[in-house]
Structure formats: C-alpha cells, structure tokens
C-alpha cells in the first residue's frame, strides 16, 4: 500500500498538472475601477486621455456598449430571454465589424441538481448564445463555447439570490 516511489510519482503528477494549470492563460477580468481612473474627465490633457483610452479594450470600458457581457437564465432552461436579445445583438454587431475578435462563451449553472447534468446544461446555454450570435451574422470561427456547469459560481451562497446570478453565460473576449 505504501510505496514511496508511487507516492512520489503521484505527487509529481500533481505538480505537473499544477504547473499546467498555472500556465493556463486566461483573459483578464474587467477592472471597472482601473478603467475609471484612466478616464477621469478633465483630469488629463485631451491627447493623453485618448492615448490611455486606446489601451482599454472596448469590452473592458464601462462606457462601451459591449461592456456588459453576462446574460442570465431561468432555472433548468437554456432559452435566451427576450430582454437579453438587444445586448446579444450589440455583441453580434461588434463581432461582425471586428472579424479579428474572438469570444469564448462560458455556460454556467446554479448548484441545484447534479454536477454532470449541470455541465451539460451549461453547454446548452453556451450553445444557445452561440446559435443566436451566428443567426445575427457572426462568423462561427469567432466563437468558442466552454461549459463550467456549476463549478464556477459568480456568487457564493445557497439561496435564490446567489443562484439567479450563477445561471448565466459570459462572453469572454480575446484578440484585437
């Protein structure tokens, strides 16, 4: 049962996977506070203000129409609620006008129900958003889907106030 070599190998495997994870490149989360500092009205000269604004990707700019990148779902459903159609169309327009931009559509669920069912449900939610965007003219090559199921809640907690924030799809931008 206790073979030191086996234990070492196991630990090695964990280390290697740890290394793999830590090298995983994730696009940065939006930082509204930082963005706001760069855009203080009147605090800078016009020229410098423009230069700083140019460094902020539009999806990270709170003033941009594509800054909102999360839509929410009803329990155990993957149909897109009409109230989110305008936001998704705004993203579709942006993507259609920027063929170099790419997004990963992350599908998430709340914690209720079984983990693997939720992994499948998150996949369906991401796929529903993908289908919507393609129908609005986005090239399929710009879109990737990724389900996290219930594994990455936006809000901790075991009540509807948290659950409603966790049943979601997030549009994660990469590229120019």
């Amino acid at each position, binding site marked *: *049962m*206790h*073979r*030191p070599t*086996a*234990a*070492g*190998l*196991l*630990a*090695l*495997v*964990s*280390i*290697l*996977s*740890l290394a*793999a*994870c*830590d090298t*995983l490149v994730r696009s940065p989360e939006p930082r509204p506070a930082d963005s706001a500092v760069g855009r203080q009205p009147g605090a800078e000269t016009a020229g410098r203000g423009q230069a700083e604004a140019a460094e902020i990707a539009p999806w990270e700019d709170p003033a941009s129409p594509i800054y909102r990148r999360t839509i929410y779902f009803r329990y*155990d459903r993957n149909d897109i609620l009409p109230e989110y159609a305008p936001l998704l169309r705004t993203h579709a327009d942006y993507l259609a006008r920027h063929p170099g931009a790419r997004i990963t559509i992350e599908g998430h669920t709340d*914690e*209720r*129900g*079984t*983990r*693997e*069912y939720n*992994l*499948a*449900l*998150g*996949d*369906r939610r991401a*796929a529903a958003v993908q289908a919507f965007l393609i129908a609005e003219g986005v090239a399929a090559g710009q879109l990737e*889907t*990724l*389900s*996290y199921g219930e*594994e*990455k809640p936006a809000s901790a907690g*075991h009540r509807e106030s948290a659950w409603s924030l966790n049943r979601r799809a997030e549009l994660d931008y990469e590229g120019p």
Partner: protein
Amino acid sequence: MYRAVVFLLAWVLAGPVGAELTIEVTGGVEGAQPIAVVPFGVGKNLSPPVDVAAVIAADLARSGRFRTMPAREMLSTPHSAEQVDLRDWQVLGMNNLVVGKVVGGAIGGYQINFTLIDVFSGDQLLGMSMPASAAGMRYAAHRIADAVYEELTGQPGVFSTRIAYVTAQPEGDGQRTTLRVAGADGYNPQTIVSSREPILSPAWSPDGRRIAYVSFENRGSNIYVQDLASGRRELVASYPGINGSPAFSPDGGRLALTLSKDGNPDIYVLDLRTRSLRRLTDHYAIDTEPAWSPDGSELVFTSDRGGQPQIYRIPAAGGAAERLTFQNDYNGRASYAPDGRSLALVTRTNGRFRIAQFDLERKVMRVLSDGPLDESPSFAPNGTMVIYGRVHGGRGVLAATSIDGGVTQRLSREASDVREPAWSPYVE
C-alpha cells in the same frame, strides 16, 4: 534544472500526507448486536503502530449493525480463546467476543492472530492468522473486521475498501481542488491529482486499480484515466464541447461518457484499447450521467427529453431508450446497486434534492436522505450503504447512510469542502 525543482517540490508535497476525514455516526440499526473486541495482546519488545482492536471495534460500530463495548467496562482481557471465561461476557450481555494478539512475523513484520467467539456456546466461529507490515496494519485490521462482519451478518464487509472524493480549499483568489482516495474509515488519504481548476466525477475501474475523472486543468472538461499505483494517467477524451460522466464498463474495457462534440450532450461508449467511439444516444435533449448495469447488458442515464431530467434505460448495444422514473420532477445521477435490482439516484421532492433508492422491479422510490442539496450517490460494494455529497452548515461534507435507513455517517474535512464520493469495488 527544471527536473530538479520538480522533484524537490514532489518531495515536499509527499511529506505531510496528513489530514484525514472525520467521521461522525448518527442513529443505529434496531437490534444492533452487542460485541466486545478485547484490546489485543502485544508480543515482547513489539510496538505495533496501530491499535488493531480499536480499529476493528470502530469499524463494526460505524456500520450501525454492532454495539461495541468500551474496553474499560470489560471484566477481563483475554488474548486467546483458552484465556476466555465465558461468564465474564455473558454477565455483560455480549453475544460475541473478539480476542487476539499481535506477534512478530517474518522479516520485521507482524502477525495478527485473532479468534471470534460465540459467548453463549463458546464456539470459535472464526480463527485466523494474518501477516501485516507496519504500514499495512490498519488495512489488516480492516480485513479482520470484514471477516467478523461477514461471519455475523452473512454479508461481506466493506471496511477494507476505499473512497475517492474531491476536496476544494480556498487558495489565493480561487480554489484548489484535489481528488483523493482514502480508506473507508477516512484514514491514509492519497492525492490522485490536484488543480486550481475543477475536478469532478471520479469513477473506479472494476478492478479498483484505475480512476477515471473529469478535470478542467487544460481549459474545459477533459477525461483522464489514471493508474493508482504508478500515478500514470492518460487523456482519453478531449473532444470539442463537454467531456463528462465517465463510467467504466463492468469488464473494464470500455468507458461510457458524455460528449457534446456533435452539437448536444449525448452518451458515447469509448473502447479503451482501440479508442474507437460509438454513439449510444442521439437526441436533441440533454443525455448524460450514464451508468452500467452490473452484467453490462444495459445502461441507465439522465435525460431531459421529457421536459425535466428523468432516468432512462438503454441496451448497451444501442436501441430505444425506456423511461424508468415518473415520480418527482427531477431525477438524476443514477447508479446500479451491486445486485442490479435497484438504483441510487438524486431526486427532488418539495424543492429539496435528496438521495433515493429506486426499485427496478416494483418501480418505487424510497428516499434515504433529507437534502436540501444532496448529490453523487455511490453504493458500497456490498450494497448495504450509499455514500453521497451534501451541504451541511454551508460546507460540503460526505454522508454514508445504510439502505435500511438506520445509521448515517458524516465524513468531513477541516476547512475544506468534500464532495463527489465514489466507493471503490472490493480490492485485493
């Protein structure tokens, strides 16, 4: 250089393999049998690392089928059948008695001799001699408890089996998830894999030597199969979309799994030798959580094709799916009892997710747990208990409950969530 760093870290991690699961037992089976496990004698100049009698007694008590006597209440402490005065035990109301001694064995090891005695007749029901190394002594004690349990209940014991589970601990601004395997008593935890990304759905191979699991370590869900002894692992499914719900076929040669590569989550069967993939379901709804029947002839799975998640059954060779559950508006994550006659599953009643046993012949459901967020049920290999994950006090813990509902064990780990338990098959 890099290699040296890796091995140094490996040594640091391999060092403190501490932190066990804590087990609390509530309830007990009506008519639990009174038994005394007398502290074992120890041979001259020996200091065995484990109190063998204490491990046996704790195993038997945890099952709920036995009431064990505290050592301080015993009138005598015999170490062999010849030293037993039956009246000492009859007067204390015991049915059975275990006595034994740890002596020196071959090449620095130990030998555990024990006898199980019927207190009324004086019959020696079981007498064995078991070799054990220092490191294997706890396991040997579990094997003795298994033998005692089987002799007195007629069912094989599961004290020497293991449990795989996932822990999640806060780390930095995220979490570290770790897949571990520990003894059924929560001791000797072993790390299988650890990641800052989610790990879920551990599934044992029928020989108990490999575990399949889903890991997000490489962006998205992928399925790995890992050999426990060597730590070597293989990436077996990384198709576009989700790769989830691995389940070994009873012959160990195939893996049922869920893939959405063809646009929608469906069940597939992967041949682990040839790597050929066969699609088992093809429906626009969600099909997931496949589980094989013990004879390998059919599988059950979860589908929301009827509007809500329910359990369906399909021949392993493919064909039409038959809906099995009609009670309650959510049924998922079914797995077969070892005798193939019932399923353990997650069901929702009054908005609470609970564990239930579904009788496949009578088509009735018996709820085994209270909820509200119980999940991932897994049968013990003797079919007497189901282990599952639940939320208790805002934290993930494991619970194991007897099928007769008499006794429940709560297994928790300090400062971390514990979830996704999978009970191992019998292992040699």
